[in-house]
């Protein structure tokens, strides 16, 4: 309830009016769970935009996978992350080799939820694509039937980059790719996923920002 209100009154007006989306291939958005959505990551706005892209009825089923150390650093942020954003906290540093860091993710997929994942691991330099971490391959291998939809976002890193508090409006281009599945091999899976996002990035026009 609180989540719906927050999205209706704050997130949707922010994303649709202040920012504004140019969406390419809207028909490729997954309409049911379980599913995984992966995208490049440049801004806190990425998660909010991806969550408004998916159908409104699925909102409670959306689970952004987010760094535990970052979002649990104080109680207010932790409350917001858990109760409003419904995140699945992820340990970025593996402490116990016998424990599966993605256990909670697999469990959510079995419940029919939709995971939102940023394989770059952190927001990094604005509007720059960094190497993907292989956690997504691990998750895909465990859940080979789950479709993985790659999405490329452009513009949000300009609107609200890492380390900036003031939002400056820029249109956001959203390129949605065809869903991929586990290929049987980690190396080829990671290459195809990265290639998919790079191809989406080349589809659009991104003005220089230096």
């Amino acid at each position, binding site marked *: 309830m609180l989540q719906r209100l927050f999205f209706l009154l704050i997130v949707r007006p922010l994303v649709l009016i202040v920012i504004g989306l140019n969406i390419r291939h809207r028909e490729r958005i997954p309409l049911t769970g379980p599913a995984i959505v992966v995208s490049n990551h440049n801004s806190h706005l990425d998660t909010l935009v991806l969550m408004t892209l998916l159908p409104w009825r699925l909102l409670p089923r959306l689970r952004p996978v987010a760094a535990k150390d970052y979002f649990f650093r104080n109680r207010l942020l932790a409350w917001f992350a858990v109760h409003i954003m419904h995140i699945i906290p992820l340990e970025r540093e593996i402490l116990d080799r016998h424990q599966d860091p993605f256990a909670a993710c697999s469990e959510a997929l079995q419940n029919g939820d939709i995971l939102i994942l940023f394989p770059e691991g952190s927001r990094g330099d604005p509007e720059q694509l960094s190497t993907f971490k292989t956690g997504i391959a691990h998750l895909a291998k465990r859940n080979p039937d789950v479709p993985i939809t790659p999405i490329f976002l452009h513009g949000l890193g300009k609107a609200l980059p890492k380390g900036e508090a003031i939002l400056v409006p820029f249109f956001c281009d959203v390129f949605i790719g065809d869903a991929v599945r586990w290929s049987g091999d980690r190396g080829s899976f990671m290459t195809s996923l990265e290639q998919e996002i790079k191809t989406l990035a080349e589809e659009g*026009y991104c003005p220089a920002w230096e």
Partner: protein
Amino acid sequence: MLSHITPSVLAALGGVLGILVVASLIAALLKRLHPDKNYSELIQRIRSWWIMIGIFSGAILLSRTASILFFAFVSFLALKEYLSLIPTRRADRRVLFWAYAAIPVQYYWVHEQWYGMFIIFIPVYLFLLLPMRMVMIGETKEFLRAAGTLHWGLMTMVFSLSHAAFFLVLDGTHNPAGGGAGLVLYLIFLTQFNDVAQYVWGKLTGRHKIIPKVSPNKTWEGFLGGVGTTTALAVLLAPHLTPLTLVESLGAGLLIALGGFIGDVTISALKRDIGVKDSGSLLPGHGGILDRIDSLTYTAPLLFHYVYYLHY
């Protein structure tokens, strides 16, 4: 509620509604007569017209303040599309923030009917302020390009367009037939009509390219046909919506037809320079907001100062 609207403005809005209904019927008929042809772009385009005209008419009928807010919002969308399209510098994020902040301020001067401030705020004060803010950040690489493109954007998307809103606050006693809303309607309707007329004349009779390097589909036939039709309509509508005399309305029609054409090809040149076909996808069938308001960036200030000089 409707005290700020004269009967002839209401009639003109009704006329626009009638044109839309006819256009929708023709599109439906074409689709039925030629089921094998693809009319989806035409239909999308007309649907977008319904939404744009619906919001515009709603704002005009609601109140003067609502109409001013409408134009402020159009300026915001246009500036955002422009700044998303052009290369900008990372260092200038905060400068861009001040450029956006200028929009509510500029339209506040309009609302307060402060003509002196309205006319110098962007050309003088922001022209001086934004480069100063850039210098304070200290990035000198590409400084000239950044300062120049930002100011061009503000002049085009905010200063020029805000002239359409200033019609609304002009003294109504000078224009008993239409009032402020009448002049706005005259400007917007003739500008958009001129776009359509030039397009249709070009499609039907166009052969000689007028400016092939910038806009290869524009022809002399389309341009002259548009000038003729728009000027005729400008003369017919003037007594109902404006204080212009017969001869003056002839000049207004020429100004809108010529200005509209130049505004259109100016934005075309911008898009060609950047290498995009449409400025965005905000208005299905049209492209982005810049594709729709391109002509208005020239006609709004031109018609405003023409009428202002002659009658206010």
